[in-house]
């Protein structure tokens, strides 16, 4: 099985694009677990809109990849050079598939892709339907693609994007596509980024103007991410309670024991930790100190971005992009993964910068 948790028995015509799905994307009738023992034996009741669109475009779905439980591992990397093992990425690296669909809300899949010399392209929040995606952190959940080239990824994104009335948080209309290439594009470099770029991928940006920029609260992105992801995740996984579907402990004396034993036995350490942190930051005495504070910073961060001054921002991780719902491409460089971020709806800006490389 290798990278697969579920490998489809499909014929693949020569030259067809082969797509592997992350373990949280549904395909009706196929098992789907989001990497959790909680969902062992759970069969997708529906097919994700993104998958339906791919199938209509004659793209071959080859199966689904193993994933870490609810994609939460990425929140708990202690060293910034650590990466997760992401089987969807490995599948592309090994050639088992051409493109992978993933929900990289933490940015860790992008980093894992870059470590394999691959790209991870994350579209604007709300541009790809999440119907059929097992939710983890709803304010950041978004299907993106792991790919070998910008062209391959852009092709898949163009197919799966677009309004879907079955997802209540979608961009209603086609957004402006951003800079049309008149004049040199300007890439904003937060403090310290300049050195990273000069060592590694400066070639990419040779055709751009680079401007040093100060981003408010940029230094606390990671903490804000942690608080918000844990808070939302704690609620998203509450439905896995052993009552209606999924795992239930064998022996329990009463309702509370049913809850506790089922969740104790089926949820992994990272998820438990995230749920506890989430409950903590939302609890009565902590809400304004942690959750609400993080939300305020998130809003200020977004408001502080000024895409009049620059067309894209280069960052050492994807936090800013995820927090602000912006399209981003995470790419390899000598200095580790770098993430290029554009204004909402301006995926084309990213493509035109990166195609020049």
């Amino acid at each position, binding site marked *: 099985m290798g990278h697969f948790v579920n490998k489809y028995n499909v014929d693949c015509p020569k030259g067809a694009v082969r797509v592997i799905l992350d373990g949280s994307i*549904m395909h009706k009738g196929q098992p*789907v677990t*989001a990497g959790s023992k909680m*969902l062992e034996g759970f069969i*997708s*009741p*529906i097919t*994700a809109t993104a998958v339906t669109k791919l199938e209509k475009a004659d793209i071959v779905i080859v199966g689904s990849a193993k994933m870490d439980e609810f994609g939460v591992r990425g929140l708990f990397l202690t060293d910034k050079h650590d990466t997760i093992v992401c089987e969807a990425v490995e599948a592309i690296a090994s050639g088992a598939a051409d493109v992978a669909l993933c929900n990289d809300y933490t940015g860790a899949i992008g980093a894992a892709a870059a470590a394999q010399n691959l790209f991870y392209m994350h579209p604007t929040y709300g541009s790809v*339907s*999440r*119907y*059929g*995606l*097992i*939710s983890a*952190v*709803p*304010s950041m959940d978004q299907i993106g693609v792991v790919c070998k080239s910008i062209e391959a990824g852009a092709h898949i994104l163009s197919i799966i994007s677009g309004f879907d*009335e*079955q*997802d*209540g*948080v979608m961009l209603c209309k086609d957004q402006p596509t951003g800079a049309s290439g008149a004049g040199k594009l300007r890439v904003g470099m937060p403090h310290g980024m300049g050195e990273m770029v000069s060592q590694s991928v400066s070639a990419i940006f040779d055709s751009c103007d680079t401007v040093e920029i100060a981003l408010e609260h940029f230094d606390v992105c990671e903490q804000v991410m942690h608080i918000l992801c844990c*808070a*939302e995740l*704690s*609620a998203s*996984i*509450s*439905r896995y*309670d052993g*009552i*209606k*579907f999924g795992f239930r402990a064998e022996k329990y004396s009463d*309702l509370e024991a049913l*809850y506790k034993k089922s969740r104790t036995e089926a949820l992994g350490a990272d998820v438990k930790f995230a749920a506890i942190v989430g*409950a903590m930051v*939302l*609890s*009565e005495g902590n*809400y304004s100190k942690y*959750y609400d504070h993080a*939300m305020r910073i998130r809003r200020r961060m977004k408001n502080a971005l000024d895409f009049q001054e620059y067309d894209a921002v280069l960052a050492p991780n994807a936090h800013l992009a995820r927090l602000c719902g912006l399209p981003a491409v995470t790419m390899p460089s000598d200095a580790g993964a770098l993430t290029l971020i554009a204004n909402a709806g301006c995926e084309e800006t990213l493509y035109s910068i990166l195609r020049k490389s």
Partner: protein
Amino acid sequence: MNYEIVMGLEVHVELSTESKLFCSCSAKFGAEPNENVCPACAGMPGLPVRINKKAIDLAIAAGLVTNCEISPVIAFDKKNYFYPDLPTGYQVTQLFAPICTNGWIDIETEMGSKHITLKQIHIEEDAGKLVHDARTRSTLVDFNRASVPLIEIVSNPDFRTAEEVTEYLDKLRSLLSFAGVSDCKMQEGSMRCDVNISVREVGSDILGTRTEIKNMNSLKAIARAIEYESQRHINALETGCEELVQETRRWDDDIGMSFSMREKAQEADYRYFPNPEILPIHIDTSWIDSIERTLPEPAHVRFERMTGVLGLPEYDSGIITGSLNLCRIFDEVLEVINKPKEVVNWIMGDLLSITKASGVGDDDIDIDCKKFAQLIGLVDNKTINRAVGKKVLVKVFEEGIDPEAYVKENALGMVSDTGFLEAAIAEVIKENEKSVSEYRAGSQKVFGFIVGQVMKKTAGKADPQTVNALLRAKLDA
């Protein structure tokens, strides 16, 4: 010591939407257990939420009829707790940005009218229902009600008597059912009321320890619960026999007592936070206007009009305005027969006695108003007499017959041919000598009986007025 009861109400009302708040499952009451359930409302993952616009429309309507301010931007929150009837482990509700705020309702009590102020109305999803099966000692869950849209109407602590509470609930029921917001049936659980109650010395402006009582499913039960609970508080204050604690209590109407469910300290921390799955919704004035245009005349305004301009009795007007369906029937018939008093008499005296006898509630009367009006017309233009009219009405209600055709086919037309009637009168006088002599001896009472005999002889078809006149002439001669 004189005590004052201070109460605030939380009223939950199920909205009359066709479908649930986030999916297309039917929201109707009375289906088989778990018949109206889909992956979304069963809490399965992978299904993003889409909000039912009709629920927002109805919540706006509720705000309009209770004089609330409608918020220009509303948002939804997650209230987190585990319970088997809650499929997702959180309830979608509105804590931070409710749809309506600062409303009021005036109610009439025996002490005069009273102004009740509302803190807010918010939208939330209902939970499922647990069914405890004593035989197998197990608990079953029915998700039909899960995610049915509700509004919670939160009042300020303005109530002082049980009468005020029941009057308020009755007024609320009338306002909301007229506006099509909800059918407000307490027995079916589409209207539920929690009472927050405390007691203090008269003149004090400090609130006493508050308890919340739940689980009353009729106005009578609410009145009994308030009586019991306020007395419990007063006893506790006077005798010190028990310490009052802030808690939620369950009313048991069979036993007539309230029982502690949980104390404040045991209450879960619900960890409310803004629901990231539903974007804030902007409600502009054109949206509000479009709802306002669809609202029917409220019951109390209609009552004023009926008792005022139309000159109808208060009792009759009260019955008609007690049901939106009766109002509709009244309006539709009045459109054809423009005689309000006549129409009300037919509804009150005839239609309602027929429907009551067959156990049909006012809201469920289903009658063809065109035929009803046609029938009244037949009596009005003396084609048939009133007694025949009443019999024909039964046929209209039960079988939907066409009154004009029916009267013709069954030759029910009123007889006012004096020759024919005089012959009948002569026969009756001959057959009832005793009564006739009693009448002539001065008994007016017996006159009605003799008229009845004539009507009987003519198979009820005689014109009573002509019979009266002819009979008087004959007997008094």
